């Protein structure tokens, strides 16, 4: 069966095969390949010639084969984002249970830290990080000092520290989930 729009058909199939890439990466590949095809057609037209579209597309090979090397590095382990080397060890054998439980845990901790920062602003005397026994014991509490003669460590610095930790935890979770999602697809 021949298509009336072989280039469009080819590009749509290629797009679907590049689905495992980041959207921006897939769009860049598509833009480059389609630009090449349109350039060849337009340059031939400028010389008063027609282009054998099927022969041109044959040069790219089947869209599935063209897409394969672009996505192969993801299947064999994409380079991790800087500072998150552990992601490189994530492979395709990821279960959905791990995906959802990991997401719930990571975002749960991030939410807890966010609430801690907000609580410190609302009830500064009740919320804090306390140390006792010469620094041998540290407790985060929402009910005032948990120890007699305990020393509060951070004071209002707890707010930015908890906010930063919350943001870091949420970002780490997002990146881990992204890597896991590739394994699930």
């Amino acid at each position, binding site marked *: 069966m021949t298509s009336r729009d072989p280039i469009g058909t080819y590009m749509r199939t290629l797009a679907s095969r590049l689905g495992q890439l980041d959207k921006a990466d897939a769009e*860049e*590949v598509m*833009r*480059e*390949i389609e*630009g*090449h095809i*349109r*350039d*060849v057609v337009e340059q031939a037209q400028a010389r008063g010639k027609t282009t054998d579209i099927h022969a041109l597309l044959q*040069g*790219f*090979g089947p869209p599935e*084969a*063209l897409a394969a*090397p*672009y996505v192969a*590095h993801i299947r064999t382990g994409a*380079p991790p984002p800087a500072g998150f080397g552990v992601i490189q060890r994530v492979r395709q054998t990821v279960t959905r249970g791990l995906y959802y439980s990991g997401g719930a845990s990571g975002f749960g901790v991030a939410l807890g830290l966010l609430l801690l920062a907000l609580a410190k602003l609302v009830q500064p005397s009740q919320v804090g990080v306390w140390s006792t026994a010469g620094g041998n014991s540290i407790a985060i509490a929402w009910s005032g000092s948990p120890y007699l003669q305990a020393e509060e460590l951070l004071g209002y610095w707890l707010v930015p520290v908890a906010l930063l930790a919350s943001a870091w935890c949420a970002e780490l979770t997002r990146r881990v989930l992204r890597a896991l999602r590739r394994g699930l697809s």
Partner: protein
Amino acid sequence: MDSNDTQEKWQVQLRKGALELVILAALREQPVYGLALLRHLQRFPTTAITEGTLYPLLDRLKREGLVDARWVQEGDSRPRKYYQLTDQGEHKLTALVQAWQQSVADINALLAAPASAAPSTQGS
């Protein structure tokens, strides 16, 4: 038929190893976009690759940090993705050129001098 087939396979293997070298070499002077690079390589029979070989290879070289790419629009033309060597790519090219020239020199020497003519290094 068999002989031609075997020769073709041998040429494919030879080209596979040399392709990275010739692409890095083609990008050493100035940025080049895909179609121009393809036509440059297609000027020579042993490096006449297809689009389907070139673009994934450029993608790999980019991921390895050997080439960099940026989109450029000239006049009314469509934006094109230009590739150029990075510093890491320059170093790789230098190493590959040395290895290639050494291989060519060695093979030429072997072609010129059959094994029987080589001086013996072992005692009799």
